[in-house]
């Protein structure tokens, strides 16, 4: 991989942010709403990518981090009447704490065992949500009241149900996480993570503490996923156990693989692509998952490193 000048990489990412901002003014209503949702879920994928793409740890349990943020924020509003910023912070704290605990336990394993352990923890988390149905709403979930989804900034009240406010909130979150991710992967710490992925033993021999670096990556990854979950609860008004099911652990993996693992913009591309394939094909056939499957096979054949990963490999080696 060629090294790009920092300005080139940051210019590209800022360009994407500006493009998304501009799209807010030209997109038809439906696609405007859909893109807001995609940006929030792309944050989930970016959190996943940090661990999977850059550290090489394949987790099958990231739905628990997303749901920790989802329930952390949602339940704080529903049961405690917290404000939007406080609830969002609660969601982040829940995700970070959970990621720390899970990381301490799961990082004692590696490879397939890590996949299984993370999946089992996620399943436990899912069942706990069902078990605590009196507070979580169980399998049916809970609605976050529309009246509580208001962001108060000084004298200004912004209703998060307003499409423009929602889009811009999603864009702000997406932009922050994108730039933070870019900053991490370009930092010394990011290079250590890649070194761990490429050759863990060698990195260890160079004097790096593998466990603590991995643990930090799990916590950052889990916190980013929780930010996505918290934003989902506050922007779209629903918390439900479906988001803690194994399906939502597989989805970010697919999004990242599609867009390109270990590329900063890949998660957005993958989430966008997958969403629109499902959205368009489901209009024609109920067997749309078959078409999604075929699309995935074609992508693996012709874009083995994902869309952006293959572009980087063949044409734009400087892409971060």
């Amino acid at each position, binding site marked *: 991989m060629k090294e790009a000048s920092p300005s080139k990489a940051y210019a590209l990412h800022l360009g994407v942010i500006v493009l998304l901002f501009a799209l807010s003014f030209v997109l038809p*209503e439906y696609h405007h709403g859909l893109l807001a949702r995609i940006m929030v879920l792309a944050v989930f994928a970016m959190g996943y990518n940090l661990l999977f793409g850059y550290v090489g740890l394949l987790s099958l349990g990231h739905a628990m981090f997303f749901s920790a943020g989802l329930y952390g924020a949602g339940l704080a509003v529903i049961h405690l009447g917290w404000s939007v910023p406080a609830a969002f912070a609660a969601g982040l704290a829940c995700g970070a704490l959970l990621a720390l605990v899970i990381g301490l336990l799961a990082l004692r394993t590696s490879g397939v065992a890590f996949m299984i352990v993370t999946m089992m923890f996620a399943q436990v988390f899912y069942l706990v949500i069902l078990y605590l149905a009196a507070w979580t709403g169980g399998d049916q979930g809970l609605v976050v009241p529309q009246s509580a989804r208001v962001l108060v900034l000084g004298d200004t009240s912004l209703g998060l149900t307003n499409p423009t406010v929602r889009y811009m909130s999603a864009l702000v979150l997406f932009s922050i996480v994108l730039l933070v991710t870019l900053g991490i992967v370009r930092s010394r710490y990011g290079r250590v993570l890649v070194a761990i992925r490429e050759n863990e033993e060698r990195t260890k021999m160079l004097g790096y503490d593998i466990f603590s670096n991995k643990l930090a990556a799990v916590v950052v990854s889990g916190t980013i996923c929780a930010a996505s979950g918290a934003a989902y609860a506050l922007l779209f008004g629903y918390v439900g156990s*479906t988001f803690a099911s194994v399906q939502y652990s597989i989805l970010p993996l697919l999004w990242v693989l599609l867009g390109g693992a270990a590329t900063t913009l890949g998660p957005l591309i993958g989430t966008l692509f997958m969403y629109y394939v499902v959205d368009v094909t489901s209009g024609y056939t109920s067997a749309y998952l078959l078409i999604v499957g075929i699309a995935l096979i074609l992508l693996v054949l012709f874009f083995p490193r994902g869309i952006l990963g293959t572009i980087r490999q063949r044409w734009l080696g400087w892409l971060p």
Partner: protein
Amino acid sequence: MTDKNGFFDLSKTGLTRRTALKGLAAGAGLAVAPGFVRYSQAQSSAPIKIGFQSHRTGIGAAYGRWYERTTAAAVKAINEAGGINGRPVEVIIEDDGTDPGRGAEVVGKFATQHKTDIVYGTLFSHVVIGSAPAAGEAKMPYFVVSEGHHVASTKLNRYVFQPGITDVKSQIQAMAPWIAANAGKKVTQIFPDFAFGYDHRDYLPPALKAQGAEVIAQIAIPPTESSFTKYFPQIPAETEVIYHVMVGPAVLTFVKELGEFYGSSRPQLFGFIDSLEATDINSPGLEFLDGSHFWEGSPRYAQPVDSAAQKAYRAAVGIDDNGAAVGDPKDVSTAAHMFGCWETLYVVKKAMEDAGYKGPEDRAKLVEATEALTEFAEGPEHPQGPKTFNGKIHQCFGIQNISKVEGGRLNVVHKTKIEDGLYEPEGDYTTQAL
């Protein structure tokens, strides 16, 4: 009556013959202008668009298939009778995958891309609850056919209605008098350890207590369970009735293992048909259910007492006397629930006509017109039976059927009254702003 402001006193307007002629000419010119003609036609003959949020895939697919068939039959009947307000009805279907996240997206798609007049048809509770915020934010009337208590709980919003099928709280309450009087006084409940089961866990004991009976044990089965034998020793020996609600594909195993546990000597069995919807009651392993009783919203099997409206409804939807698709006996319907689609669409028709509904700008009027409805008479539009409607909680109340499994079919042995299922409202949607 005098007009103090002179608004209706033409003598004060200075209307001259020249002005009147100009006005007439302008009016005539406007009326024959091509754009006006097109606009008039669009208002008078453009279809009413109904967005159908269907469970085509996912766990609700069997229900979704039959909900679509019932909807198609009802829309055909409505259109053949002149449509709604003289306009044809067009149904646009989107698959929600029985997933609440996708469900919310689908509601958004109906509101902003298809620009439907209403959204309708959702069954699974978690999809309804997940989609309700999107409907409320889009100010989109959302008519569900779910039977969950979520609408009547008034925890959703003013745009969500359930006028075509009763809710589970009402159903459970209506079952209690018959169970206490005919099946037994000591009841053990077996239910899935998630929200649908909790409705039964919470609402049955007080309903039975009011009838002089009691729940002596409650056994919750985890949703991931695939074998049930280990739970059966928890059933107290003095149990007279086992009340079972086993939603999910494991129901066949549950019944088989219950049969193996009890052999030929068992307590009375009373269940909700939900798990066995779209499943042949004569499937291998279900023999143990012979002689047991089930709740049914609408009877699966044709009954000797069926009304002409019920017969016409069954013929229109295309189900035979055994409740299977005409021409395909293995394709068993979801008869206990799908009538709700038919009846909901007729409620929508009635409310739109009452509101003088012309287009999305009249959605608030449609909400108010629906809330103003109070009762639906039994007949071609409501073949399941008469119903009352509480506009404050957006929920209808109706009769329930108790059927006995005998001779390989379900025979209705008791019909409850509407009053059996009534309860005190838990809130009032009409206080919410539109």
